[in-house]
C-alpha cells in the first residue's frame, strides 16, 4: 500500500500540495444553481468538515469531488493535476473514494467479495478466491474485526460502513469523501468511526467529512468549511470554531434563535385520553406497548434505531397489523385499523422517510399535499382545481415552503422544504392526533425551527402530538412527557423537565447492552 506519507504532513498543517483543490466550481441542476464559485482546498492528511444547512450544497461538493456529479463550471485539481473527464471510476483510479449516505454494497455478497468487487485477482478470468487473505491485511491496517465471509446484507449499518472504508483502502484511496456517515449510527458507533478516521489521518489519508452533526465535526476535524446557499462562507481551523459560531455562519443568524420554542401549557390529564394504547403487540416486534396521549399534549418516544419506535407509530396508524392489544381514540375502541380509516378518524402520520414513504416525487407539490384528502376537494370524482389550489397555497404560506409555488417540482426541493410539504399534506384536515416520526431528520436549521413551532401550534389548538426522534435533545426540548422504548417494549416514562439527556442516554444504552448479553447467553 502506497499510503505511508511523511509524518510532517499528517495533522493538516497546510504543508504540501493540496490533494484536492476546487477553484470556482459552479453547479446547477436543470437551471437551478446549487453551487456558486466554490473554492476549497483539501490538504494531505487532514480531516476536513463540510457543514451547512440542507440545500447549502455540502453534499454536492462531496459528490463532485467523488465524480458522482459533473461540474457546470470551474476547475478541479486532484493531486495537483487538473482533471477533465471525471466520474467515480476515474476518481477511484486517482485515489479518491466516496462513501455514500446510502451505502452501496451488494447485500448478497460477502464482506471480502464486496471489498474487492471489480478488483478481484483472477487467472484467465477465473477467480483466485484469495479475497479473504487480502482482506486480512486491510482489516489489520484499519483495525476492524469483521467476519470476511459474512454477507454484507446481514451487517449493521456501522459494519457496512467499515466494509465501505476497506473498499476505499483496497483501492489505495488517499482521499475518502464521507457523506453523513454518522446519521444512522449510535453514539458509540460514531465514536468508533471517528477513531478510525483519526487513524487514517495519521497515515496520511485525507477525509472529507460531510455532516449535519456539528458535535461530530468539531470532535474530529482539523478544518471546517461552512457553506450557505451554495457558497462557501469560510474555511477555518476547527479549534477556532464552536457549535455556536458554526451555526451562526450556517444560518446567518445568531444561535439564540435556534433554541426550542416555548413549551405549550401543561395539558389537563384528568379527562379521557385522546389516544390510549393498551398491551399492543405486533409481528413487527412490539410487546405489550401501553401509552396515553392527552389533548394538547406533546409526548415523545425515545429509543435507539431498531428499538420499535417507528413500529409503535405504524401499528397505531394501522400501517402494520397488530396481533393483540387495544387502541382507543377519545375513549372509543379503534380495532380495525388501516391508514385509510386512520385518516378518516383524524390521525395523521408523518413517516420516517419522506422520500420513500411521504412523497410522490414524480408529482408536483399540490397533488402531494391533497393526496389524503382528495375526496374533500372533489365533486363526482372530479377534482376542483380552484379550491385545491387555494388550500395548498394557504399551507405553503403557513409552513413557509420555499419555493412558494403550488405546482413546484417537489423532487428538486431541499430536504427541509420536502418535509414541510409532507407536514402540509397531513395538517390540511386539522387532525386530532399527529404522529411525527423523525420530523427534523436531514432538515436544515430554518426548517427545523419551523417544524418545532408547528408542533407547539398543533398542541395549542388541542391536538395531541406523538414525536419520535433519535435526538434525545429534541424530545427533551419539545415534549411534555416521554416514553423510553427498547426492544419493542416501553421500558419507562419520564418528564423531560426532571430528567437529563445523559440519564436517558445511559438508560437506553444500558438497556441495549443487557439485551445483547441476554441474547448471546440464550
Amino acid at each position: 500500500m502506497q499510503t505511508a506519507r511523511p509524518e510532517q504532513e499528517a495533522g493538516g498543517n497546510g504543508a504540501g500540495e493540496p490533494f484536492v483543490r476546487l477553484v470556482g466550481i459552479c453547479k446547477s441542476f436543470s437551471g437551478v444553481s446549487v453551487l456558486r464559485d466554490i473554492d476549497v482546498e483539501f490538504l494531505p492528511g487532514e480531516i476536513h468538515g463540510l457543514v451547512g444547512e440542507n440545500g447549502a450544497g455540502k453534499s454536492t461538493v462531496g459528490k463532485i469531488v467523488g465524480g458522482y456529479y459533473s461540474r457546470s463550471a470551474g476547475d478541479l485539481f486532484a493531486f495537483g493535476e487538473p482533471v477533465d473527464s471525471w466520474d467515480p471510476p476515474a476518481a477511484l483510479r486517482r485515489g479518491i473514494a466516496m462513501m455514500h449516505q446510502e451505502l452501496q454494497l451488494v447485500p448478497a455478497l460477502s464482506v471480502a467479495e464486496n471489498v474487492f468487487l471489480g478488483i478481484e485477482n483472477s487467472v484467465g478470468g477465473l477467480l483466485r478466491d484469495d479475497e479473504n487473505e487480502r482482506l486480512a491485511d486491510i482489516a489489520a491496517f484499519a483495525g476492524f474485526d469483521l467476519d470476511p465471509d459474512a454477507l454484507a446484507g446481514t451487517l449493521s449499518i456501522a459494519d457496512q460502513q467499515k466494509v465501505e472504508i476497506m473498499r476505499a483502502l483496497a483501492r489505495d484511496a488517499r482521499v475518502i469523501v464521507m457523506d453523513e456517515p454518522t446519521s444512522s449510527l449510535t453514539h458509540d458507533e460514531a465514536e468508533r468511526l471517528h477513531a478510525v478516521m483519526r487513524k487514517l489521518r495519521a497515515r496520511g489519508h485525507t477525509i472529507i467529512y460531510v455532516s449535519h452533526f456539528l458535535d461530530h465535526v468539531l470532535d474530529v476535524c482539523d478544518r471546517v468549511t461552512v457553506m450557505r446557499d451554495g457558497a462557501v462562507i469560510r474555511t477555518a481551523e476547527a479549534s477556532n470554531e464552536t457549535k455556536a459560531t458554526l451555526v451562526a455562519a450556517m444560518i446567518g443568524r445568531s444561535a439564540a434563535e435556534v433554541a426550542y420554542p416555548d413549551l405549550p401549557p401543561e395539558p389537563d390529564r384528568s379527562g379521557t385520553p385522546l389516544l390510549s394504547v393498551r398491551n399492543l403487540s405486533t409481528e413487527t416486534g412490539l410487546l405489550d406497548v401501553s401509552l396515553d396521549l392527552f389533548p394538547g399534549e406533546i409526548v415523545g418516544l425515545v429509543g435507539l434505531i431498531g428499538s420499535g419506535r417507528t413500529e409503535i407509530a405504524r401499528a397505531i396508524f394501522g400501517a402494520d397489523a397488530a396481533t393483540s392489544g387495544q387502541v382507543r381514540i377519545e375513549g372509543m375502541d379503534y380495532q380495525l385499523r388501516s391508514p385509510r380509516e386512520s385518516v378518516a378518524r383524524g390521525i395523521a402520520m408523518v413517516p420516517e422517510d419522506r422520500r420513500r414513504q411521504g412523497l410522490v416525487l414524480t408529482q408536483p407539490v399540490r397533488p402531494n399535499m391533497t393526496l389524503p384528502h382528495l375526496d374533500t376537494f372533489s365533486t363526482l370524482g372530479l377534482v376542483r382545481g380552484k379550491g385545491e389550489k387555494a388550500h395548498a397555497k394557504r399551507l405553503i404560506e403557513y409552513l413557509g415552503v420555499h419555493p412558494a409555488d403550488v405546482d413546484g417540482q417537489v423532487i428538486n426541493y431541499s430536504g427541509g422544504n420536502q418535509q414541510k410539504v409532507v407536514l402540509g399534506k397531513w395538517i390540511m384536515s386539522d387532525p386530532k392526533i399527529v404522529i411525527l416520526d423523525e420530523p427534523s431528520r436531514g432538515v436544515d436549521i430554518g426548517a427545523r425551527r419551523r417544524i418545532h413551532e408547528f408542533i407547539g401550534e398543533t398542541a395549542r389548538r388541542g391536538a395531541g402530538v406523538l414525536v419520535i426522534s433519535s435526538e434525545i435533545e429534541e424530545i427533551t426540548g419539545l415534549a411534555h412527557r416521554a416514553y423510553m422504548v427498547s426492544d419493542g417494549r416501553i421500558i419507562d416514562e419520564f418528564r423531560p423537565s426532571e430528567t437529563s439527556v445523559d440519564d436517558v442516554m445511559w438508560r437506553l444504552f444500558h438497556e441495549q447492552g443487557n439485551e445483547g448479553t441476554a441474547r448471546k447467553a440464550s
Partner: protein
Amino acid sequence: MSSSRTSVEQGARRGRITAAGVARFFQTYAVAVMIVALIILLSFLSDSFLTVQNLINILNQNTPLAIMAAAMTLVIICGGFDLSVGAIFAVGSVAAAAIALAVDPLAGLIAAPLIGAGLGFVNGVTIVTLNIHSFLATLAMGLVYRGIAILITGGTLVPVRLEAFTWLGRDRIGPIYIAVIVMVAFAVLLTVVLNRSTLGRRIFAVGGNEEAAILSGIRTRRVKIIAFSINGFAAGLAAAIAVSRISLGQATAGMGMELEAIAAVIIGGTSIYGGQGAVWRSVAGVIMLALVNNGFNILNADPFYKDLTTGLIIVAAVAISASGRKR
C-alpha cells in the same frame, strides 16, 4: 450582494433556463416533433402521401391500436404492464361476432368492451390478491384468454354477414369515420380521468410511490384493479371496431398488439417506471408508428427496414426520456 453580481447571476440563470427549457420541451414534445418531421419528409418523398384521403385512412386504420395505447398509458403510469390485451382483443372479437350471430349485432358490439372490462378486472384481482407482478400475471392470463377465444370458436373463423354489424368500423358521419370519433372521445375521456379526477391522481400516486399512497389512506389495490379493468375495456372496444370493420371474428386476432400498444406508450415518452405520462402522447406514439408503416408502403421500401426503423425509433424515444433522469 452587489448589484453587478446579481445581474450576472440572472444572466447566467436565464441562459441555463433556456437550455433546460429546450431539453424539457424535447422530452415533452419529442414525439410531436418527430411526427412533424416525418410528415415533411414523406411529403417530399411521395406525392400520394400528403392527401386528405391518405391521412384519414392512416388515422382510421389505427383507431383500435390508439384506443388500446391510450388505456395502456393508465396501467403503465400506475406502475404496471398488461401483456394480455392482445388476447382480450381476440376474446372481444370472437365474442362480438358470436353474440351478433346468436343474439343481435348491436348486443355483440356492446358486449365486447364489457367482456374486456371483465377480463381486465380478473387481471387486476389476480395481481393484487396473489401479489405478483402484473408482467407475470398478464402474461399467464393472456394465454388463458387466448385459449378461451379458441374455445369459443372451436378454432374456426366466425364471419358475420350482417348489415347492422359493420357501422361501427366502416361508416362515417360526414367526412369523419365513426371509429375515429369513438377513439378521440375515448382518449379525451381518459385524459380527463387522468388529469382532473381523483382516480387519476390516485393512479399517479400509486405508480409514483405506492408506499406513500398506502400511508395516505389510498386503497391502492382498488386503484390497480380499476386501471386494469379500463385497459380490458379498451381492448374490447378496439376489438368491437376491428371485428365490425372486417366482419370476421377470429381467435388469432390481436396477436402482438399488446407489444405495439406498449411500444406506442413508450415512444410517447410515458415513463415505464410509472408515475409519469400522458394519454395524448401515447396516441401520438401510435400515429408515429403508423406514419413509418405508411411511409414504407407508399415508398415500396423493403419491409425488412420497417422493423429495423421502428426498433431504432423506440430506442431513440427511450433514450430521450432517460436523458431527463440524468443528473
